[in-house]
Structure formats: C-alpha cells, structure tokens
C-alpha cells in the first residue's frame, strides 16, 4: 500500500547544470498551502496587491506533490507534527522548510505545554527561521529572500541532510509521537 524504498541522494553537485537549476529553483518557489498553526493567517497577505509574492515567482500549490517549500507556521503540536512529516516527505526533492514565528523556534509562549514541540530541528530539517510573534509579511518575504539566496549558493540542503540522517530523525519523531502509525517511507 505504501512505498517501501529508501530515498536516494542524487550525486550531482558538480554538474554545471546545477547552477542553472538552482537559479530556476530560487526563482520559482512553490509553497504548499498547508497551514500548520496560527501563523498561517499571516501568509495570506502575501498574495495581496500590497505584498504580492508572485513577483518573486513564489506561488501557492494546494498539493505537496508539486511544492518546493513547506512553511511551518506557529506552534507545532505533536499531532500536527505527524501530518507535517507526511506532507514534507511527500514533497519532491529538492525541498525546503521555512519555520515561522517564535513558537516554532522554541515553543514560544507554549514552551511548557504538554503537546508543543520546543526544538524543531530534532524532527525535521529547517532551512530558514523567521522569528516574531507573529512575523509581519515583510519579515516572511525577508525569509523567502534568504531562502532564495541560500538556494542560489547551493546551501539550502536540509533535504539531503534529512535523507542522510533519516534514522536520527525517525528516532526522535517516534519518541514524541507515541502512536506511530505512519508508514516508514512516504515519498
């Protein structure tokens, strides 16, 4: 019923095409429209004529299959983490994560809650953090431009990190998700 293969790490760092590809990737960031927390409301103004993220080539995709970027917005509960993992793994490589807001970074005001994660990096690789509670749309655009810069430089390789250290990530994920019923591979 599900995929049972380990993901592969493509070995194409040295190819010349990679530069061109990275330019294209940076200028065509498709974001999966998966609002994980309260911060998702701050993404909506980005569509509007005031902020207009489409001018950077950033577009929303309603399905993870076609997206490049997953935005984790606001606090991340254990229950949401499960869904985030599945959505993230369904995004095709190369893929990036932007974490939005204080709660995402360290639990924020919910640091002592029984179901909010405090350290996100243990569970999935984050490429860019944007802090604030909540961050303004300008800050999000700032985060996007940082991500674009990283991609162009070939440094936004959280996804490779994730594949390489899949065991570590899985172990941490399984530690907090007490009823782990996800398939091991979700590609």
């Amino acid at each position, binding site marked *: *019923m*599900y*995929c*049972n*293969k380990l993901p592969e790490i*493509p070995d194409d760092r040295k190819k010349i095409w990679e530069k061109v590809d990275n330019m294209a990737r940076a200028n065509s960031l498709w974001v999966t429209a*998966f609002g994980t927390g309260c911060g998702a409301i701050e993404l909506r103004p980005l569509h509007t004529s005031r902020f207009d993220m489409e001018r950077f080539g950033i577009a929303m995709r309603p*399905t*993870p*299959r076609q997206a490049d970027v997953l935005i984790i917005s606001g606090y991340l509960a254990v229950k949401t983490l*499960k*869904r*985030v993992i*599945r*959505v993230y793994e*369904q995004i095709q490589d190369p893929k990036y994560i932007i974490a939005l807001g204080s709660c995402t970074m360290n639990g924020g005001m919910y640091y002592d809650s029984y179901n909010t994660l405090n350290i996100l990096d243990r569970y999935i690789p984050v490429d860019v953090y944007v802090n604030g509670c909540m961050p303004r749309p300008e800050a999000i655009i700032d985060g996007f431009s940082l991500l674009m810069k990283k991609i162009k430089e070939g440094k936004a390789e959280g996804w490779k990190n994730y594949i390489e250290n899949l065991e570590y990530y899985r172990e941490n994920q399984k530690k907090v998700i007490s009823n782990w*019923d*996800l*398939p091991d591979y*979700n*590609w």
Partner: protein
Amino acid sequence: MVIALAVFLPLLGAFISVWLSRKKPALSVIVSQLFLSGGLLSTVLLSIKLHAWNLKDLGNSIVLHTGVGAPPLSINLEVTAGAVIVAIVVYVAAILGVTRLADRNVKTQPLLLSLVTASLGLLFATDLFNSFVFLEIGSIVTIGLTAACKCSRRWEVAVKVALVSGLVTILYLLAVVVVYKTTGELRLEALGMLQGIPALMVSALMLTVIMTEIKAFPMSGWGLDFYQGASTGIAGIYSATWSLAVLMWSAKVLPMLPVPNLEILAWIGAGGLVLGQLAGFRASNPGRMMGYSSAAYASMLLVLAGTTTGNDYLQLTLVLMVFAAIAKFSVFMLGNPEKKNPWKNAAGNLLLLPILLIIGIPPLPVFWAKFRLLSVLAGVSPLMLAAGAVGLFLEAVYLLRLWSQRSVGLKKNGRLLSMVASVLMVAGAVWLTSVSWKSLSFSGSLISSPTLRILFMAIFGGGTLLSLLGARNRIEGERKYWFWMLLSGVSLTFLPLAGNGITFYILWEVTAFAAVIAVSRGKKATTGTFWFAVFAAASGFLLLVSIVLSGNMFIAPGIPVVLAAIAVLFKLGQMGTHLWSVRAYSAAPATMPAFLAGTSSKAAILLLIVTALGTGIVAVPAGSVLAWAGALTALSMAVMAALSSDYKKVLAYASVSQIGYILVGLGLASVLGWTAAIYHTFHHFLFKTVLFLGAAGVIFRTGTSDYNRLGGLVRRMPLTFTFTLISVIAFAGVPPLAGFGGKWFLYNGLIETGWLPIALIAMFASVVAFLYAFRLLHAVFLGQLSSANAKTREAPLALLVPQGLLTAALMLFSFKPTLFLQHIVPAIESLPGLAGVAPIIDGNLVTTAIGSWNAWAVGMMVMGLFGFAFVFYWLSGKRPKHVGQLDIGFAGELPPSPEEVHYAGNFFKPYRRALAFLPRIHAGKLFSGITEILKIAGDMVRAIFTGDARTYLAHSLIFLVIFFFWLRGGI
C-alpha cells in the same frame, strides 16, 4: 379386424386387469401394457396403411361395421388417417401413463384402459348415439379416475366433473332426440340435413355440449378446476387421451353443425381466445395455467372450424391438438403429485420444450399450425388476426412465467416419461418441418447485396465463434448453456441467407429462444429471463403477424412495416423497451451478454435493413421517425449509463445507446447514413464483444459487478484493462481509433440531408458517452484497488483470447478503415433507392461532399507524437519511483482504507442535480402499468370462474340460451 383390435384390445385388457389387480398387481401392469402395446401396434399398422404420415389426405378412411344391422343398433367405426395418428398418441400416452400410475395406484389401471377404449371409440365413432355411448363411458371413467387419485381435492373435482357431465348428457340427448325425430337418422352427417328451428336448436345444443366438453371459454371453469385439483398424473393422462379424443371428435362434428354461417364459430373462438387468455394472465397455479392453455386450444379449434375446410382443417386441428396434448402430458408428468406445489423443482430443461411447443416457437410443430392459422385469420379479417395474435401472446406470457418460475433444480419426477414425450415432440418437429420443407427457402436472399450478406454472416458467425470460445472457461457451468448459444449462433449465422419471410422468422425465433434458454442458465436469472422471454415472444408475434400480413414475402409497406419496426425496437431494446436488455444482461451467465449485445442484437439491424430494402427504402417520414427515435435513445440511454453504477448494466445501457446511432444512420436513407450504420454495426460488434467479455472476466474474478466494490484492477488484470481501454476509446469515438469513423459518416450524412437537430442530439449523446466511458474505466480498473480484490488474478485465457483477436481487428480497422470501406461503400451504393452521394475512397483518404478523413495519417501522427514524447521522457532522466496506492497527498493524513478513497459511486452527482428539472420517466412504470391494466381486465374476466359447480352449469345454460336466440335473430 385390425381396427377392432385397435379399439377393443384395451377394453379386454381392462377386464383382465380388473381381475388381476386384486391378486397380482405387478402382473396386471404388465398385462395392461401388453394389451396397450398390441393396440398401439395395430394403430401403427393402420396409419401406414392409410398413408397418414404425409398429411396429404387426412380424410382417407376405412369403415368397419360390427355386429348386425345398421347404426345405431350396432357400433360402426370409421377410421380416418387423422384419427389414427391421434390414436397412436393416445396409446403412447396410455402406455406411459400406466407405467407412471403403476407405482402409485394400481386400482386405477382398469379405469385407464377403459378410458383408452372410450377415447378410441369416440375418435372413430360415426353416429351420434355411438358417440354418446363413448362420451358417457369417458365421463364416468374420468369421474372414477379423479375420485381415485390421491389428492386432497379429489371429491370436489369429481363432483364438478360429474355435474357437468350430467348436464352435457341431458343436452346431448335432447339434441339427439331432435335430430332423430326430424331426420330419422343418427349418422353424424344427419346434423347437416337439419333445417329451420330444429337446426337452430341442435346447433345451440351441440355447440354448448362441445364447448363445455372441450372446455372452451366461457365454459372452461370446470376444466380449470379439474386441472388444478386433480393429481398431475391423472391430469396428464386425461389431457393426452380423453381430452384429446374429445377435441378431435368435436373437430369432426363442428363443421357439420347446421349453423347458418360457420364463421360465427370463429368469432366465438376468437373472442374466447382473447378473453380466456386475459383471465389466464393472472394465473399462478401451474395446473390452472395448463387449464387456461387448453381453453386457448379449444378456442383455436372453434376458430379453425369457422374459417378452414377440407384437408387444411384436418391438418391444422390434428397438428395443433396432438402436439399440444403431448406437451401438456409432458408438463403434467413432471409434476410431483405428492407435493402441494407439484412443479416446484421440476426439471427446467424438460419443462421448457413443452412450453415452447405450446407457445408455438419454430421449428416446433405447433408453430406450423399457428402460422397457418394466423395466415387464414389474416384472410378473414384483420380484427380476427389481431384477436388471435393477442390471445396467443397472452398465453405465451403466462406460460413463460410458469417456466421461468419453475426452471430451477433438477429432480427426477417423471423424467423418463417427459423425455419420451420430448422425443415425440422433436420427432414431430422434424416430421412437420420436413413436410413443410418446401416453404423454406435459402435462395434469393432478402438482402440483394452479397457483400452485406457476407458481412453480416461474418459478424454473426465470428461473434458466435468468439463468444463460444469465451464460454469455454469454467465460469459457471458452460455446459449448461453452451449448446443453446451454439444453436442460437448457428441459426443467426444463416439469417442473412433467408430467402423468404417464414425462413427468416424461423431462424429469428430459434435465435431468440435459444438465447432465452441460454440466459436462463444464469444463476439469478428468473426475472431477467422472464422479461427477455416476454419481449422475445412479443417481437416474435409482431414479426409473425407482419410476415403473415405481407403474405410470407418480405415485408409489405403499410402496417407490416410498422409492426416489423416495433419488433425491431423490441428486439433492440430501444428506449422504453430497454428494460429487458438491461435486466437480461445483468442476469445472464457471464459470457452471454457478449453474444447478445455484440452479435445477436445485430439481427434486428439486419431485419431493419431487410425491411427497408423490401419496401423500397424507408420513406422520409418513417425514416425521420426512426432517426428521431434513434437519436433520443442514444441520448437518454447514454445519460442512464452515466448515472448507473453496475458494470453490466452500464454496458447494457451503452449498448442500447450505441445502437441508437445505427438507427439514425438507417433512418437517413442515404448512402452516407447507411455507410455510417453498417460501419457502426460492424465496429459495435467488435468493441461491445470485447467489453462484455472483459466484464465477464472481471465479474468472474471479483464476484461483483458493483462499481463501489471494484477498482484498481489495472494492477491485477493488465491485459483485460488494455483491451477494455482500447474498446472504450473506440466506442467513445476518439480518433485515431475506429469508433470515430461511424460518427464521422453519420454527421456528414446528417449535415448533407440537413437534419441538423438530430445531428445536434447525436453529437451531444456522443459526448455524454464520455461520461460513462471514463466512469467505467475508472471505477473498475483505475482508482484504488480494494483489499477484497488485492489478490485477484488475470481473467481466464478463454476470455482473453477472443478479446485479443477482436482488439487486434479493431486496431487494424482503426488505422486502415479503407480495408473495410472499399468493400462496403460500393455495396451500399448499389442498393436501390438510397439518396445522396457516396463517399470517395482514394488510398487512405475518404472524402465526402463536405469533409475528408485520413485515418492512416491521423493514426501515424498520434503514434509518432506519442512515441516521441515517450522516448523523450524515457531518455531525459531518472525513472520515477513507484509509490503504493495509498501514498497520496491527503492533507497529511493517511487514507483510512482503499475503499473509502475510491470514488466511484454516485459519480456524476452534479449531473444528476443539473438534470433535476426533468420529470423522471420510468419505462418500467409504463410496462408495469400495462401489466396492471391487463391484470385488472383479467380479474374482471376471471371473476366468472367462481369455483362453484353451479356457476359452471349456469355458464353452459346461459350460453345455450343466448346462442339460440342469437341464431334465431331475436326473442
């Protein structure tokens, strides 16, 4: 001497058997059988002597004087050729009956032997008083037999028989007295000498007597109760001996009645036929159904007596009565008298033949008689023809219901006896077919174009072969229906060769009813079979009447064309009558629908073509009616198919819808239209057979045809999917596959003729076809594989091979349609009376006045583009990972189960909603409405059969009075 032996041997046997039965029952049975066999032998000798078997001169006779003096003091017997055949049947029935009764009630044997003697005496009697003697013996023995049988209602029935016999005796004696007083003679011929009031009196009396004895409507009440109440063994023997003898005696007497105009009898008979069968429409007890059927035959006897004379009359009465008696005997012998419902679990196969015989399905013997009867009626009056056909059809309906309800299980009740009877019936069929052989014709086919003839034979023969090949799997006991499919297919294959109406009709009916039998072998076939059988019978009767009206040649303009067209619509299951096809297809054994929809339905197209050719082309108004009907059918059935969620039903609706296009094409009456029709006919055969065979495989492997429970089978049945996919693309009419050609010719023809609204509807229907086409592919093969089907295997090879062959043919004709067209177009062009310009075929390019089509170029382009994209994709990078079926982007959730994610039921919900403004019309309601009306009418008629013997006596007396004053012309 031989005659005396023939008549009196049983009587002797009766005495000996009375003596023996007390002491040595076993010996008495053997002795009875010996005596009966002796009688049989002597009658057979007589029959040979009289040349009875060629049916040429049935009045041929030998006269025997016994004792001293002239009649009525002595018994004088006249053995005619017809009577001798009846006598043989009586003997055979008696021998079988003795065997049957031996293990139940030995005491009845002497009675039975006496009954045989009485029957034979009556058959051969020449004067009124002798007849009276034998009538009396027969009645008393009947009462005795009834009372001796071991059923709960025996006394009730016996009393009714006794009362009716008493009345008959009184009336008969009155008549005899009048005759003797007036003429001083007692010979039967003396009846004809009467004049004036005595003649009227005697006529009324004798007619009442005869109608009461032969159980003609409205005096059939006691007969119904008798057949229902008596044990099946007694009823069977009674029907094949005494009842038969009385019928034949009445046949002898009726023409001699001093009625002013014998046609009165025919009108009484025709009225009785309709009303009596209407009453029978509601019957549910099998015995009672047989009673109604015997009333029908009695009415037919009256009709015959009123309309035919001479050898014709003798032949018709003989064939009708004898074979009906054999059939009834056979039905009754299958019943188990110890059961409350005797025909429960009767052997379906054996029940079938007699019932089909009574209905009159060719080439069974009764058919010949019924056909000639209807021909005669057509000569008398159209009203009488209509009455005859309606009565016979009503009879067919309830008899088919009897069969379809009982055709389950195989028990050995009287199986041997019935098989003997069946052999007799088949032998009779062969005999009569050989006698009537000259009326069959296979030369000078009704279709003038040899190309079309070959095409249709190829479709029929090929379809039969491939369906049979498909049936060679272990799906559901193919042996049960294999033979019938073969029979149906073979007669279908010869259909295009038929040279005249009767040949066409026989092949048509054999095809239809062999298919009905094959369908009935399905597991849940009862309702489906019944509907199928009723519509087959209806279309058969319509066609028969149409052929009769056109005098056996094909098919005269006017009413016959209309009837034939209705027959075609019934056969095709067009809009309104689609019910039978949908029900039958979903009830039939797995591979049957492939044959029915793919191959057999083309017979109706052939009939339509034949009709059109025979009448010198469908004229414009008729053609446009046909085209409108076809277009609306195509549209409405396509919508039905899109909204239905049962695999077989969808295919059935789709089939009906596709045939709508063919009707539009034929209705066009232009070369382009007919090219479209023939093209579509051929391709519909190809892809519909593939689709139904594919469905058979799927249903066999998964055990369901419900869309909601299928899905994802492309992973398990890739070959079936491939064949189905190609067929679906073809019938959806998407270039480059073959279905497009039919549509292209059709629209070209429609635009050329200027029938734009029809073109619009047809185009819309062809787009609606996408809805069910995709839904079919998706719900069955794509989407999620449900866990129940996770281990399904590919369909059996027997189903895949024909699909593969047909798909290959489909692909060939898709890319090279000119291979087909270059033969068909000249053939159609050569047909008389077609309007319009023929398309020009130049290499691969087909051009009409307004458009052009190059299938080869389009095919190559598509293959090239597809191949290029494919190769480019293949070379441009890594192959993608295959993920599991539940690995879908589901908002981060895990899909609960494949079944819940598979979206197949209520697929076109928005479409249903958008259609909500239309009133919902159910064809089912139309037919159940008709059935209701018939039932109400039947209830009104059958209210006269109260079950009270006094009412029955009253019927006879009232009839007597009314008839007498009617003859007299007032009170």
